């Protein structure tokens, strides 16, 4: 098990494995998303309170969940890189950040579009989740800005890992402080409804799993380019490019 793990951490080996793994995540992911979109838009019944507007959850909930998931991946990969000095792990963190920011942005946009018919405004400062999500987006921006400001890659890796770890403690505090703050303003009653019916829930699960698989596949692709860039002066990259297959 450990031997396998150590082998995976070597860039050339990872590069080969990920090439095989990536389509196995992408194709099922796209199939599940296709089903989820169709079932969510046409098969699921209308919500008795929100009408058709609720259907945006099929995009909104998976993006919001992935926005936090990506941060967890980014911070834990950074920590692993700091502690065990695994170079590949820093490449994972670097690759996860823009994806996480993209999903955070998607979650914010869809949340805002959903808020328009539900609350009558595009943006509601009183809602703790909107505010925490916005702060999360800024954390991603800070992380990426720090990375790009430091020219030396190993240094950028370590500095941004420290920032991501400090940020993870803070995400929790942001969440609770905003919750406390908004409880002084108003409660959200729109979301307090009973359990969802099965024909609403199953497409949501399909979308959640589909988005996760898609995210995994995109992450692998980004890590591959990151690894290739970081290892551009090594022998294995040169050999692979000059080989008859041309490094496909």
């Amino acid at each position, binding site marked *: 098990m450990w031997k396998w793990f150590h082998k995976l951490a070597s860039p050339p080996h990872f590069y080969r494995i990920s090439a095989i793994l990536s389509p196995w995540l992408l194709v099922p992911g796209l199939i599940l998303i296709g089903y989820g979109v169709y079932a969510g838009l046409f098969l699921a019944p209308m919500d008795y309170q929100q009408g058709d507007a609720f259907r945006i959850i099929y995009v909104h909930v998976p993006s919001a969940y992935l926005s936090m998931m990506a941060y967890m991946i980014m911070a834990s990969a950074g920590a692993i890189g700091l502690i065990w000095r695994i170079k590949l792990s820093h490449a994972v963190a670097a690759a996860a950040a823009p994806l996480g920011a993209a999903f955070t942005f998607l979650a914010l946009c869809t949340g805002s579009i959903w808020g328009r018919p539900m609350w009558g405004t595009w943006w509601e400062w009183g809602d703790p989740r909107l505010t925490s999500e916005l702060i999360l987006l800024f954390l991603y921006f800070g992380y990426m800005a720090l990375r790009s400001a430091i020219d030396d890659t190993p240094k950028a890796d370590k*500095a941004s890992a420290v*920032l991501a770890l400090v940020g993870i403690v*803070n995400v929790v505090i942001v969440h609770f402080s905003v919750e406390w*703050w908004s409880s002084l303003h108003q409660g959200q009653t729109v979301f307090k409804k009973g359990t969802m019916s099965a024909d609403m829930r199953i497409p949501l699960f399909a979308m959640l799993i589909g988005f996760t698989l898609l995210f995994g596949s995109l992450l692998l692709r980004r890590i591959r380019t990151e690894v290739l860039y970081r290892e551009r002066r090594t022998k294995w990259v040169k050999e692979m490019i000059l080989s008859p297959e041309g490094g496909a």
Partner: protein
Amino acid sequence: MSQVDTTEAQREIPGILTGLAATAKRDLLLAWKRPGDVLNPLFFFAMVCTLFPLAVGPSAEQLELSGPGVLWVAALLSTLLSLNSLFLSDYEDGSLDQLLVSPQPLPVLVLGKTLAHWMTSGLPLVFVSPILAITYSMPMSVVGVMMLTLALGTISLSLLGSIGAALTVGLHRGTALLSLLILPLAMPVMLLGANAVALAANNDVYTTGIWALAAYAIGSLSLAPYATAAALRISNE
């Protein structure tokens, strides 16, 4: 080899608290010799507080409502302004390298520097803020609460900021980057502080905010110096 060992043993290494006090004292002395570094953020704080009534209009009710928030945002921005120089001059003249190679634990030395920073940036803000609060027609009982929240909150801001300052020391585009890194992290402090003051102004229960700020200050006192020390070592490799 044995000779080296005896000389090492003979040279007494001062205790941790001595190191802490010496670093703090040095930075306080430096600030005393260059009063501009302390005064400029204070003037900035006063200026920002002056700009708001000019921008939103002089109506007393409106200012009473926005007072706590404005004062807290101004305090946050002025702390940010002074953070950039926390490690900069040490980095430029090489004393930062001395701190890194010293036998004292780096987190303790960093804590000394950060405490000195708080005494020269946060603490003056606490004492200047009542004057500005009065112009926002804040009642005297609320002013006390505001000073308490500012005192507790600026400790956390200095400590959090020291992490950002350590990460960006020696970078060319440091100042803007520092704000980008620190503002999301500092947001809860400002939110808790400003809302505790707003609640006090409403004759509401505000102690939750005070306790939360105190907890935040204690948490950052115990954790932030380690992160700052790690960041300093990374930036100075």
